[in-house]
């Protein structure tokens, strides 16, 4: 079974590719570039096209598929409505699939399921990464605010942190938010930090 993965994210395409390969599906073709996509896909002639839902090329490709005179005309996976919850899950995960007419459902289902799981894993990874990034950014601004307080008030680092924390508790804010406002105030007042 030849599978084309069309994605706007090279990282996500790699995650999908890895999953499919592990499952023994090795006839894989990755398309990241919008230009010439229709022609490259036609030349590739895949049995299944997996595509991220937010890909702006979807309308263009569906038009191409509608006009396709080739025998193997891909149709939206959604045409098989026998399993609505699976379709809803795919949409929720952010994936769409096109399958050539006539390909047996029991051959497609595992591929789609796998792609959905990989998309979900990728989404989780993205969220975790974003959280890690914001935690790192918070720690940096807390360090910076501590430095400002130590310099202005001539206090030690633990004292500066205690001050930040007690102020955060009094004003019902997070320590990082208090730190941000200290940094903002300092820069507005012309500090050198």
């Amino acid at each position, binding site marked *: 079974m030849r599978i084309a993965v069309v994605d706007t994210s090279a990282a996500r395409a790699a995650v999908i590719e890895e999953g499919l390969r592990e499952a023994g599906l090795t006839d894989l073709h990755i398309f990241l570039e919008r230009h010439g996509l229709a022609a490259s896909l036609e030349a590739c002639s895949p049995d299944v096209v997996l595509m991220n839902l*937010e890909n702006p090329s979807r309308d263009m490709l569906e038009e191409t598929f509608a006009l396709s005179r080739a025998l193997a005309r891909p149709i939206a996976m*959604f045409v098989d409505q026998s399993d609505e919850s699976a379709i809803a899950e795919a949409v929720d995960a952010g994936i769409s699939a096109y399958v050539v007419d006539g390909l047996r459902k029991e051959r497609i289902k595992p591929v789609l399921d796998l792609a959905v799981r990989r998309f979900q894993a990728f989404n989780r990874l993205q969220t975790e990464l974003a959280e890690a990034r914001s935690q790192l950014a918070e720690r940096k601004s807390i360090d910076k605010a501590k430095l400002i307080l130590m310099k202005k008030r001539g206090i030690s680092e633990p004292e500066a942190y205690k001050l930040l924390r007690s102020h955060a508790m009094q004003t019902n804010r997070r320590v990082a938010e208090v730190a941000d406002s200290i940094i903002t105030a300092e820069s507005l007042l012309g500090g050198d930090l």
Partner: protein
Amino acid sequence: MSLDHFRIGFLPLVDAALPILARELGLAEAEGIDLELVRDMSWATVRDRLIYGGTDAAHLVAPLAIATTLGLDRPPVAMAVPFVLGLNGNAVTLAPALAEAVCTPGELLDSVTLGQRLAALIALRAREGAKLRFGVVHRYSSHNYMLQYWLRGSGVDVARDVEIVTIAPPFAAEALGMREIDGICVGEPWNSVAVERGVGVIVNVTSHIWLRGVEKVLAMQATRADAEPEPVHRLIRALHKAGEAFIDPARFSANATILARADYLDGSADLIERAISDRITLAAGHEPLHIPDFMFQHREAANFPWASQAAWLYAQMVRAGHVAKSDDGYRAAQQVFRPDIYRAAFAGTDVPLPGASAKLEGGISETTGVGTVQGRLLLGPDRFFDGRAFDPDALDAYLAES
């Protein structure tokens, strides 16, 4: 009071303004609705979220709501359109060299003259084996049908002599710049983006092809609209209020600033304001031209879903070869537009309600009073560029003539 939650899908276009303003100006909340907007980059995805869960309603190209009901490329799902989000507002932009061959960039010719010149050029290029290629935003879009209507009405053999391809709106300028296409029919601000980059010249506007032609609609699943009508009534009342705010000249600039935000159109407020204020810069370096009613989102019951507008779209789908004509299909297409829901939503308000649900499209040559069940209503001209009219009760005769 707990708010009813509505998720509405949209594409980054100026005519997504009403749902955006309904949320941002607190108009939805005032009607007890918590409006969440979901931006996508293709109509396919806007529709898939609407059909397979995720959203409750969508900003949608009108013919796609009909195609979805008819099941043209997905299993059929009955759609309901209780409210039209706007009329017209699209333009035809050509690559500068092509524009110079048919007009003087910066000037707006009448659609008949320009159509004849373009038709001659299209025929010439087809004979030379170098067919002109036009972009539209979706197979089942008003853009596609208005462009085809104009070209065919100007004498172009659309099936034989031109190529029409699909290009997502945000790529219009890039596709023109890279010569993937020779021209495009697209909504704002994407024509203006092409003009600003010097890769396109606006040569025509869809209001000059069919004045008051239906454009985007609010679409939802019919079962959903019928199961819980009351929140839908409140939603479309909020959208109607948003229309009032949209056309207020004192708000043009503020509205453009809201639409320009990263989570909405993520673009330039200056370019967005051009369409909002009907002042369009046709070619780079030229003064903006005032094109009255370039967009038409509120007055003259613009939001009323006339069944005859859906009928006209169905006729164009037949002409384009997208659907085989059938009585059942024609009836189903017209039933997508739901004047009954619109009337129920505005009963007892000061919003004028037409008495009829269909009209002779293209039949009004000067402002005319029409029968209402509530309030007074004057409708302005709704002419087609070729002067033809469309009678929804005479589809066969209409198709036979064309």
